[in-house]
């Protein structure tokens, strides 16, 4: 698997609210012990909203940040776009330190390189749908014709043709969020932040919007940081995900890693209700062939184990999982699948 280049890297980022957070971070040369510092901050009437966050997001990847309410997800993603100024740490966008960007550079970056979708949509009430989607282009001073054409294209992309002249309050929540998505995509950013975009929507609409989101992503291949507190949503959408608790990232990994090897009890409890068979994909369990013959039956790497059950029942002992590109196929044995099935069984009986 050829690793995609790193788009966004976040190194030891802290965000502390309180009277004088800077006081705790000006000691250069010290090695900060995160937990101890967070403890001290709390005891001294400060609120560490993000504690020593470190992760990397590869180009074209959907990176989901998940955690309970108040765990600091919104703060973290706002640090990434510098809507919130981090107290300490380093954020590299395409290798450039974002925290060193001047006001002007930052505006340029936001105008071209980043897009963001908000939980409560953040649509401007006085502009029509067309005006809202064209807004980022208007801010850049693009000619009216061009921005209108582009806005119409975006509106069509999210399936809202015909509603261009409506005002936001005339739309349903799901439609409003489509407008929010269209607006954030209007400038064609490579990096896309979504802060709980579907949390304000009904479960049915939410499901529909998730499908829509995946469809768009297959077309557009953005680099995505997606915030959610909904576990099902996180496991559904994520290529990789990070779990936060009280400002700290407690585990980062692919969905299968997290359900199979939870870092601690918190994560284990958190993911307890996730059906393993649905979260784990064929690719997650595949091992290299090691010279054995390529099985006749083959499955896609992205297929969930659930889909394999009927075929296993009909007596298939092994599958070949085609590798990425021209690489050699991998091997998925029925034993591996059955082991997961067994584990699911013991989890069920325990709870």
């Amino acid at each position, binding site marked *: 698997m050829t690793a995609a280049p790193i788009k966004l890297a976040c190194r030891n980022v802290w965000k502390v609210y309180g009277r004088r957070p800077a006081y705790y971070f000006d000691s250069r040369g010290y090695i900060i012990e995160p937990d101890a510092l967070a403890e001290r901050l709390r005891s001294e009437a400060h609120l560490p909203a993000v504690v020593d966050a470190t992760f990397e997001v590869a180009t074209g990847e959907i990176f989901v940040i998940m955690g309970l309410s108040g765990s600091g997800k919104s703060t973290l993603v706002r640090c990434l776009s510098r809507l919130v100024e981090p107290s300490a740490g380093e954020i590299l966008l395409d290798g450039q330190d974002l925290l060193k960007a001047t006001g002007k550079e930052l505006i*340029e970056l936001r105008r071209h390189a980043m897009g*963001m979708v908000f939980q409560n949509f953040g649509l*401007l009430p006085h502009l029509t749908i067309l005006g809202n989607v064209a807004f980022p282009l208007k801010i850049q001073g693009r000619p009216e014709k061009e921005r209108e054409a582009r806005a119409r294209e975006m509106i069509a992309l999210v399936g809202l043709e015909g509603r261009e002249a409506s005002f936001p309050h005339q739309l349903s929540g799901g439609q409003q969020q489509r407008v929010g998505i269209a607006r954030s995509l209007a400038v064609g950013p490579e990096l896309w932040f979504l802060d709980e975009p579907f949390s304000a929507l009904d479960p049915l609409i939410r499901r529909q919007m998730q499908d829509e989101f995946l469809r768009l992503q297959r077309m557009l291949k953005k680099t995505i940081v997606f915030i959610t507190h909904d576990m099902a949503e996180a496991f559904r959408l994520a290529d990789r995900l990070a779990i936060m608790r009280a400002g700290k990232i407690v585990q980062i990994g692919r969905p299968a890693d997290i359900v199979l090897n939870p870092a601690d009890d918190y994560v284990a409890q958190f993911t307890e209700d996730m059906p393993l068979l649905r979260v784990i994909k064929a690719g997650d369990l595949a091992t290299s062939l090691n010279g054995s013959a390529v099985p006749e039956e083959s499955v896609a790497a992205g297929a969930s184990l659930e889909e394999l059950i009927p075929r296993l029942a009909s007596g298939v002992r092994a599958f070949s999982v085609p590798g990425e590109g021209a690489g050699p196929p991998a091997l998925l044995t029925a034993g591996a699948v059955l082991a997961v099935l067994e584990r699911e069984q013991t989890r069920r009986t325990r709870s």
Partner: protein
Amino acid sequence: MTAPAASFRSSPRVAIEPALLPWCALIALTALCLVLKTDFPWLVTFPKEWTLPLAAGVNAVTDAVVTVVQPAFRALSAALEAPMRGARLVLVWLPWPAVMLAVAALALKSSGIRLAVFALLALTYILLAGYWPQSMSTLSLVLLAVPISTVLGFALGVLGHTRPGLRPVLLGALDLMQTVPAFAYLIPLLLLFGFGPVVGLIASAIYATPPMVRNTLLGLDRVPSDISEAGLMSGCTRRQQFWHVEVPTALPQILVGFNQTTMAALSMVIVAAIIGGFEDIGWEVLSSMRKAEFGQSILSGLVIALLAILIDRLTIGFAKARPAGPTAAMTWMTDRRLAIVLALAAALAIAIRLLWPNETLLPATGLRMQVGGINQWLLGLVRDCAWFFDGLRDGVLYCLLLPLRIGISGAAVPAIWGFTLSPTANATYAVAVLLACALLLHRFNWRPALALLVAGTLLYTGFLGFPWPVFILGIALLAFQVAGLRLALFAVAGFLLILVNGLWGALVQSLYLCTLAVLLCLVIGGALGVWAAYSERVSRILKPVCDALQTMPQFVFLIPALMFFKVGEFTALIAIMLYAIVPPIRYVEHGLRHVRADVVEAVEQMGATPVQTLFQAKLPLALPVVMLGLNQTIMAALSMLAIAALVGTRDLGQAVYVALGKADAGMGLIAGLSIAFLAILADRLIQAAVAGRATT
């Protein structure tokens, strides 16, 4: 395990709370003061010799400052004179058909056909009544004051939003601007700018600024973070963020501010006629009232009322979107069509003036010239019904006003009540009050009992006969227990300032007048509010009445009060009540209608009667809202105090008014600040009480 049991055994049935102890001390002090008051009269009336010449000091400072800065202000005055005269000339020059066309078009755009028809009718009335030129010159002042206030208020609001550090200062200044009666700052303005309409303009601009500041602040503060972040993520520069994201999002609130500012400017322009003596509608009302020409004062008062309603509906129409969406007429009147109609109106004006250069186009004799008959009739009516109006006045005067002012002990003399109280009667009164207190103590707790005791004592001694040290300590103690040390110190400082300025008598007069007005408003307005909450029909009738009462400039309320009750304290009471009765009606109705339905259902489920439900569930639940209404009532009553001075009172408002007549800046400011002090103290006390209830 033993501790709770022990405390249970030792606790008496009525626990002596720590909060009660100082009150007991205060009651003892009151009794002491009352016993000693014949020997030491200073306990009741603050002696003249103890007052400090603060007002004179203020005057000396003002005089010194004024002589230095006067040229600058006179220059400003001269600079403003020109646009003012210009605006006035233009508006008076405009022939009425052009004005009607333009206003009707605006009304159509703002709220549709009905407002347009109303506008035409109102303007026709003004024309026929013969007050067209006066109305236009009033409007010209409003038209100049409003942009000044709007720009100033917006700028200050933005400043307060972007510099949170400045906010306390700003809010404090706004509180003062809104509670110091305008008459009080007319005096320094007069000294600075000299007599004339410019002072009216500037006073209006000052008076009309605070609502704009508050609403701008509110609007900008309430821009949802999602929207402002969306703006930032779109790559807005600071300026783009402000003008393209924050201001448009806050605009509805800012327009509400614009509406309030316009109404305040109108109200003040009319009041400012008192010093002006220039041809405007406020002056018409004032002079006809002074001459007891009731026909004219009603006609001109109606002009003010119509103007106020028209301007209010016009501006609110632009500020608030109709819930049902724009009407057909509103959508038909697009911006372009509006521009065309306005251009047409201008062309019409020029054409008329060119074709008939020497015509005024106004009806030769307005209604006002023919009201001799009406005047006679009204005087006759007042005379014929004198038994009723005089009876009402005397009844309230002797049964409510006097006992409150000089107390039962003071009123029970042959000259007033026709009898004196025998010692037995005195003793009976005391025993009755104490018994009632004991009953309250038994059924509820010490607070209502204490309140009744205070009320009983006040009723006996009267506000004027109540010892001032006890009064100040009592209010301070209340402030301390409700809101903390800072408010208590504020109260003591304020009362001492009033005391040493020799204004205690005026303060007490104000207090008793306001207390009575507020109580009556609460009872009458509260009852109406309850009725409206239960009956759709009453609600539908009361709503437009309340709307109209609230849009009226304060001045208007003097007219009917004066007409039926002549000059005097009772007239002032009626005028104050007319102005202050709306909040209790509104807030009680709103509070009752929005009580949590599940709680009411639970109570009804328990088998409570409707009356029980009202008093035991709905009213207590609605209490915070009702308290806000009480707050508004007190503010309204205090702000009406200065205006009511015109019909004869002896209170702080009168002190301000007299100072205005004598151009005594020091006394005017101090008396004005005293009213502001009362308003701010009452406001903070009630807010603290509401917040305290919310947390417990």
